[in-house]
């Protein structure tokens, strides 16, 4: 079968690899009909996530048709059309049974690697480094899905692939980011990063009752997409973000700030170049200028919610600001399983149509070129869907 493989930093290729097979009795094999490139895949392309190996199959946003099930998968049959959550979860450990699916205790075969860096191991993820399990991903024609009796989620035939595909990651991720803001009605939420996750965070915050959303980015088409959803926009290249947010909120600051950028923040300020220099000589691993700004801009007693991915260490976190303003920081890989029924309902009722975010749909053979188009934000690229067949 064809699969998108990571070769080394800056190089992904489409390779011809063996078809996957059932390895455990709770596995299923899914024939992939649609798969997407995630912003977090760009961290892999750029070499920001450790423990990748040449030849690893990428991809954690995918859906398709069940073609084979292991003997302990009682709830799926061949032909079921499913989306598959990006965290792999057993469904039975303490964490899964407490709706902390991305913290599953049993799904990472390389837990000891993750424990070295994080103390304890999070769940295994599809196509996201060996520290996160080393599972082959879904940017391929077929994929093996472990714990298939728990993860895959059936979707109705009347909804198109591009309307439900993003239930695998970015829609729940944006939604959890907004939910973490503890919105009760009428709040002002500032969102840094208007990539796909930021777009869903903006729409989710409004769905949850935020009074006002301010979207911050530098890319015009992304700001336009945010404005389409009803957000006010700031261009962080030209606007003084702190002063503008302060003005817009009558001197209070936003009630909640969402960092939908993560560890590869870009910026024009001094601290960006400071981070860039440090990461280049491995004194730090992640660039954190967005997080610093979000903490600084947030009102006293507010919440900073972080759906953007961080992998290692960051420097110069304004801990004093966070502490003395009494901020709440919430973050983590998304507990996708928890949100699926709720979010499917929003789609079915027509309250949101996730396909708005797609700018490019291409055959899987074009994946290597599209990784770069997406990373460099060329050609108005916001979200890429790959068609493997």
């Amino acid at each position, binding site marked *: *079968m064809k*699969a998108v*493989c990571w*070769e080394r930093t800056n190089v992904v*290729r489409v*390779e*011809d*690899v*063996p*078809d*996957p*097979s059932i*390895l*455990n*009795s*709770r596995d299923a094999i899914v024939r992939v009909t649609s798969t997407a490139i995630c912003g977090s895949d760009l961290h892999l392309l750029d070499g920001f996530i450790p423990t990748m*190996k*040449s*030849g*690893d*199959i990428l991809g954690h946003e995918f859906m398709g048709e069940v073609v084979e099930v292991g003997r*302990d998968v009682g709830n799926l049959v061949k032909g079921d059309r499913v989306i598959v959550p990006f965290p792999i979860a*057993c*469904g*039975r*450990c*303490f964490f899964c*049974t407490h709706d902390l699916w991305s913290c599953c*205790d*049993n*799904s*990472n*075969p390389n*837990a*000891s690697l993750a424990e070295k860096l994080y103390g304890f191991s999070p769940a*295994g993820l599809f196509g996201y480094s060996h520290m996160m*399990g*080393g*599972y*082959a991903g879904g940017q391929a024609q077929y994929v*093996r899905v*472990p*714990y298939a009796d728990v993860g895959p989620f059936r979707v109705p035939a009347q909804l198109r692939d591009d309307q439900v595909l993003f239930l695998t990651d970015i829609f729940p991720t944006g939604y959890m980011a907004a939910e973490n803001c503890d919105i009760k009605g009428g709040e002002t939420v500032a969102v840094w990063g208007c990539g796909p996750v930021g777009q869903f965070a903006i729409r989710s915050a409004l769905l949850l009752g935020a009074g006002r959303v301010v979207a911050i980015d530098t890319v015009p088409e992304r700001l336009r997409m945010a404005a389409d959803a009803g957000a006010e926009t700031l261009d962080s290249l030209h606007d003084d973000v702190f002063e503008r947010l302060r003005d817009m909120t009558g001197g209070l600051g936003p009630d909640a700030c969402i960092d939908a950028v993560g560890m590869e923040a870009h910026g024009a300020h001094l601290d960006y170049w400071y981070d860039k220099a440090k990461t280049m000589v491995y004194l730090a691993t992640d660039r954190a200028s967005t997080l610093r700004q979000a903490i600084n801009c947030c009102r006293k007693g507010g919440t900073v919610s972080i759906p953007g991915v961080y992998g290692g260490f960051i420097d110069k976190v304004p801990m004093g600001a966070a502490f003395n303003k009494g901020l709440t920081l919430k973050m983590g890989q998304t507990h996708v399983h928890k949100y699926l029924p709720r979010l499917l309902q929003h789609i079915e009722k027509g309250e949101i149509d996730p396909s708005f975010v797609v700018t490019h749909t291409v055959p899987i053979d074009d994946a290597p070129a599209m990784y770069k188009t997406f990373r460099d934000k060329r050609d108005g690229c916001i979200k890429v869907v790959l068609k493997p067949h």
Partner: protein
Amino acid sequence: MAVATGRRVDPGRLEGQLWNQSDDYANIDVNVGRIERWMSMLAGGALAAYGLKRRSTAGGAAALAGAAFLYRGTTGHCNVYRALGINRAAGHATERGTGRIADRDSNTRQKLGGRRGIHVEDAVTINRPVAEVYRFWRNFENLPRFMQHLESVAMRDEGISHWVAKGPGGMKVEWDARIINEVDNKLIAWQSLEESMIAMAGSVNFDETPRGTRVRIHLQYSPPGGKLGAAVAWLSGEEPSIQVREDLRRFKSLLEAGEIPTTQGQSSGRTGDRR
């Protein structure tokens, strides 16, 4: 969580009886001086590491020589000195015996005491009822399903079991063990029979906690090949405490998820794996 009172047996006491360390452990002639032992360990470690890295005949020889120095350093016993009748260990008794297990005191505890034995403790919490966890472990034949170094365990009558393990370098190690302590849903302890080729003992405590069943394991054994074997195993990355942690992780997965997570056999674009 403390052990609840009012139970039939206090496992802490049982454990104390089983695990009280005796200071009488130096079953090996110490005939090498202290500074010399340190130097032996350092030189041996370096030599063995160098040899293992080279992966050639010469490298193998260097590794073996290094291992011999390591043995000399860790045990304080030098066969060459012994053959020559030299003893540089001032103040160390040398009349304690030959270091072989079988002809010493018949008590397994003593055989395993101190430096002669490898001693590992670890714990894991499993989101299953204590009775189920206990029952699974009590059937020793289940142990090879998650203990990677065990090939098989066969239950025989009257609490006797036959164990087959994979030793270093593909060597097969076998022994018989007897259950020496057992409290339903609370404790299992076993030890090898006198005539076994290796000495080992183990105990597992089971406690109910608000997070599930806490399993605490104690393992002690004389490694195949003695301290030397342990040093070689350590150099090749087989650290007993890491092995036990991985085994307990697999045990937890097996009981909670019904299977052990794996990626063995999945496809990738690595050379040799491509079509």
